[in-house]
């Protein structure tokens, strides 16, 4: 491995670690990031000359710490002086014991519920995954200045509002963990839902989300939902490349090329899900992973066990009683028990009106009608869905279906 490759690999593996430790030691988020960046820059030089150290993470953390001490020593008076004193009395190399806690502390601090959800996401990507501000801005389709401001404001709030840098105490842990898992899931969806082009940053987001889910599952081995989330992301990611065809058109699960799925990811996801389920504490991520596993482990679309999937959605509704989950359940029930059963559930949602502006409500009705051969009614529902759909790939798909219904 060349020095460049070693540094690139260390960046993937160790960035969050180095920043997390430096934040604990200095209490200064900006200084921590600056010194981490500096350590990686030095690594390129030194590793080229002296070879890659045995423990790159320890080397980087030590180098960043020394750099931070230099900076703080050069600072004149005031609060920073106090921090310097605090740092000099800190244990010299707390590397092996504290590092796991450091990263967990950092995840929980970045995802503190007193921060706006967008700030949580941006901060997590910046401090834990090491994405640059322009990269994060591009991923979330906002101007760079907006994203920079968001990050500055989030760090300011952590400092000024006194958001603690720690893993929350036991009684807060369940609700806070849900929030942390939610941020990672959101990151993944930002990358996964992008159907246009080969935007590398968006694909990167899937990879970063999986990496963070892996870190979290490793740090919280007793939390089955953390394992469940990692399993869910892997099982979704396994199908990523087949969801859009060469022309950028959406390909439904039914028509995807199953041989092109990433079977290593499917196997890993399924194994993780089994481990999680053995704990006997199911939750929404485990159930969603189980649904994804039903799809990805079926030999063909026809072999899909829709009765199982419908039952799992029934369970999921108990945890997440949202209209969107109930709509998904309607699809599964329609496939398992016949289109009429599915249409009855869709009609219920239509009466309630909560999803009245959501294109997938008429699109689901259209699909069930199409499957039962009621093409005229299906065409009307597709037209309604087209009035509401905004994403280009989805619009093309709906137009294609509408065309099929008009001239069967």
């Amino acid at each position: 491995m060349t020095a460049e490759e070693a540094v690139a690999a260390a960046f993937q593996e160790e960035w969050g670690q180095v920043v997390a430790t430096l934040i604990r030691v200095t209490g200064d988020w900006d200084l921590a990031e600056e010194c981490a960046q500096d350590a990686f820059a030095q690594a390129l030089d030194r590793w080229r000359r002296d070879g890659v150290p045995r423990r790159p993470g320890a080397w980087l953390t030590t180098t960043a710490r020394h750099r931070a001490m230099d900076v703080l020593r050069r600072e004149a008076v005031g609060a920073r002086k106090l921090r310097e004193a605090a740092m000099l009395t800190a244990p010299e190399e707390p590397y092996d014991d504290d590092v796991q806690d450091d990263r967990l502390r950092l995840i929980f601090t970045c995802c503190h519920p007193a921060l706006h959800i967008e700030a949580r996401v941006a901060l997590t990507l910046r401090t834990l995954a090491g994405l640059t501000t322009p990269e994060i801005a591009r991923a979330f389709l906002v101007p760079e200045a907006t994203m920079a401001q968001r990050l500055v404001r989030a760090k300011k709030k952590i400092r000024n509002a006194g958001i603690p840098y720690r893993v929350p105490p036991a009684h807060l842990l369940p609700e806070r963990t849900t929030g942390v898992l939610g941020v990672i899931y959101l990151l993944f969806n930002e990358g996964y839902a992008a159907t246009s082009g080969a935007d590398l940053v968006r694909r990167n987001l899937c990879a970063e989300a999986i990496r963070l889910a892996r870190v979290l599952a490793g740090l919280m081995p007793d939390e089955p939902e953390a394992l469940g989330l990692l399993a869910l992301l892997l099982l979704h990611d396994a199908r990523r490349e087949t969801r859009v065809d060469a022309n950028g058109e959406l390909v439904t699960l039914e028509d995807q090329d199953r041989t092109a799925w990433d079977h290593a990811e499917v196997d890993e996801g399924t194994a993780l899900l089994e481990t999680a389920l053995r704990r006997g504490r199911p939750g929404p991520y485990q159930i969603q992973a189980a649904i994804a596993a039903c799809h990805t482990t079926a030999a063909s679309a026809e072999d899909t066990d829709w009765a199982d999937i419908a039952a799992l959605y029934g369970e999921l509704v108990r945890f997440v009683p949202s209209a969107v989950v109930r709509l998904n359940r309607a699809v599964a029930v329609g496939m398992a028990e016949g289109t009429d059963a599915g249409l009855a559930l869709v009609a219920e949602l239509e009466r309630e009106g909560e999803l009245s502006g959501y294109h997938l409500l008429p699109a689901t009705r259209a699909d069930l009608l199409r499957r039962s051969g009621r093409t005229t009614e299906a065409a009307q529902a597709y037209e309604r869905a087209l009035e509401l759909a905004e994403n280009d790939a989805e619009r093309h798909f709906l137009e294609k279906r509408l065309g099929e219904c008009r001239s069967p």
Partner: protein
Amino acid sequence: MKYALLICTPVGGAELSPAQIADDPRFTSYIEEVRSRDLVKGGARLRPASDATTVRVQGDEVLLTDGPFIESKEYIAGIDFIEVADLDEAISLASRHPAALAGGSVEVRPVWE
């Protein structure tokens, strides 16, 4: 009789540091007057609304919002000054406040120190 004076400032306006305030004659003459007449019995300068966290309680669930209270129908009915270790402890206290339990909300605003 005591009054709570709530000093409002335009959203997005400049946040003056204590040093800037000490150098501004409009502030110094005001401070001088209230001090000499012993009008102010207690108070604090609040950090900007962007540093606030609002706590609501719905059933068993503590809901946090980044930022100040947002419903214009609410008004500020009182101020408590508390000294705690960090935001989590402040939130925990705020979530037990009768106002938060009765459908109102408590804005946790850090104070300039």
